[in-house]
């Protein structure tokens, strides 16, 4: 099988005294959508922060696209083609929706390509086109999530990591975002998705990892996990 795009091997990480990750192993192959699910505090966001360089791994290796990026600065990681859409959107107050999107392309210089990608984001999320001059932080939660994802796309990443896609979104919005992600993926975008709503996660992803207390508890093809009774018992009780 082809060389994985992202490969974590025994990564541990945390904040100050608090250790959160206890040796995570994880791979993402080009063209995949991989989902990370797990309860609150499991360490999903911490994992993403560690990959994107906001936290330095305390042990283990992170290889991206053949090169080791463990402990590299966020800008380096991003340049390498790894974008991180943070939990809770984190849009820039005081900047219009458009400017927020443009900041996604901060490290890029190819003007016309940027313009094309902006258009493409507006097609994915038409509401943003109408609101492009509004202060991004006065958008509703859902609108903000779209803007955040769009901002991630604007950096033209090899791998797009999204934390808590559906947090605070209406079912319809989740569905809409889901379709958007699938469309992205069909266009060749590899995606690592952190998701609370396990059902959505399994529907969207090819493979999934279940994280518990900073370790991988289970992983495998999403369809199979979804069918697995023990899993649905723990996570799918609607």
């Amino acid at each position, binding site marked *: 099988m082809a060389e994985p795009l992202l490969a974590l091997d025994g990564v541990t990480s945390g904040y100050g005294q608090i250790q959160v990750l206890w040796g995570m192993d994880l791979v993402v192959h080009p063209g995949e959508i991989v989902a990370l699910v797990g309860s609150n505090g499991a360490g999903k966001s911490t994992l993403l922060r560690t990959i994107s360089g906001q936290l330095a791994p305390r042990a283990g290796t992170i290889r991206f696209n053949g090169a080791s990026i463990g402990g590299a600065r966020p800008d380096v990681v*991003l340049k390498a083609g790894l974008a991180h859409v943070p939990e809770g959107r*984190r849009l820039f107050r*005081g900047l219009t929706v458009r400017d927020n999107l443009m900041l996604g392309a901060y490290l890029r210089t190819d003007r016309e390509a940027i313009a094309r990608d902006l258009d493409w984001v507006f097609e994915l999320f038409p509401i943003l086109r109408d609101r492009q001059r509004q202060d991004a932080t006065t958008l509703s939660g859902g609108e903000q999530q779209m803007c955040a994802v769009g901002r991630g796309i604007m950096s033209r990443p090899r791998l797009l990591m999204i934390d808590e896609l559906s947090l605070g979104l209406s079912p319809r919005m989740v569905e809409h975002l889901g379709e958007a992600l699938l469309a992205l993926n069909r266009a060749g975008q590899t995606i690592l998705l952190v998701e609370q709503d396990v059902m959505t996660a399994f529907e969207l992803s090819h493979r999934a990892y279940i994280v518990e207390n900073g370790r991988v508890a289970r992983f495998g093809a999403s369809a199979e996990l979804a069918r697995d009774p023990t899993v649905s018992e723990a996570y799918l009780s609607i």
Partner: protein
Amino acid sequence: MAIYLQIISNGLMLGALYACLAVGFSLVWGVLNVINMLHGSFIILGGYLTFFAWHLYGIHPVVMLPIVAALMFALGFALQKLVINRVVSAPVLTTLTLTFGLDMILYNAMTYWFTATPRRITLDLGAVDLGSVVLPVDRLIGTALALVLTLLLYGVMRGSSIGRAIVAVRMDRSAAELMGIRTDRIYAITFGIGALMAGVAGVVFATVFPITTNVTGIWLGKAFVVCVVGGLGSVPGALVGGLVLGLVESFAGHWFGPQQAITAGFVLMLVLLVTRPTGLIGVRGYE
């Protein structure tokens, strides 16, 4: 009526100087969220550099402009990176007190080396007499320079990706990191620009006002007022704020006498603080 033309032109010329004086302060405040009590001393330091270059080596102030700019940028950059950066995200109480402490050091050093004796650059450029209005040439030049420099900064902030990054960092540091922006560098650059603008303001002032450590507080106070009047962290804000303050002081001075001139400025500031905390221009993204 002639008198009013004069009053207005006085106000505008003064205002341009104020704008130039405040814009760096406003930027640092807006972006680093730090009230830089050093600003007044930075201005005077720029003035001293200009004066001694002129006094000892006969270097013309205009020639000193880029040199002072470079030196002050370096100073500001270093100061932020080595000292201020360590508390940059602390509450206003901490940062303000820190810069105040730093100012005490710089102030003391300047008073010790240069003494409090006011220094003056006398170019004696005369004045253009338009009959009803007289415009001192040195002020005209100062005004022009002030405007050019301020607009230059605006161009940088608005056009360059550095400018955009500065705003992003101003709003959300860690999210900015995820955009590939190096926040520590941006902070240092911003503070550098702030010091740079203070320095060049000093150069301009050296030809118009006396240079002495006694007035650091006065200029700092003006910077406060201009910022609040115009709106924080914004170049256009500083420009508007400066001009408004200049005019207000000029008219108040004419109508109610010089004693009320300065008071009027502060009253205006307090009123705006309460009624329109974002200033006349308001807080916006760039700038």
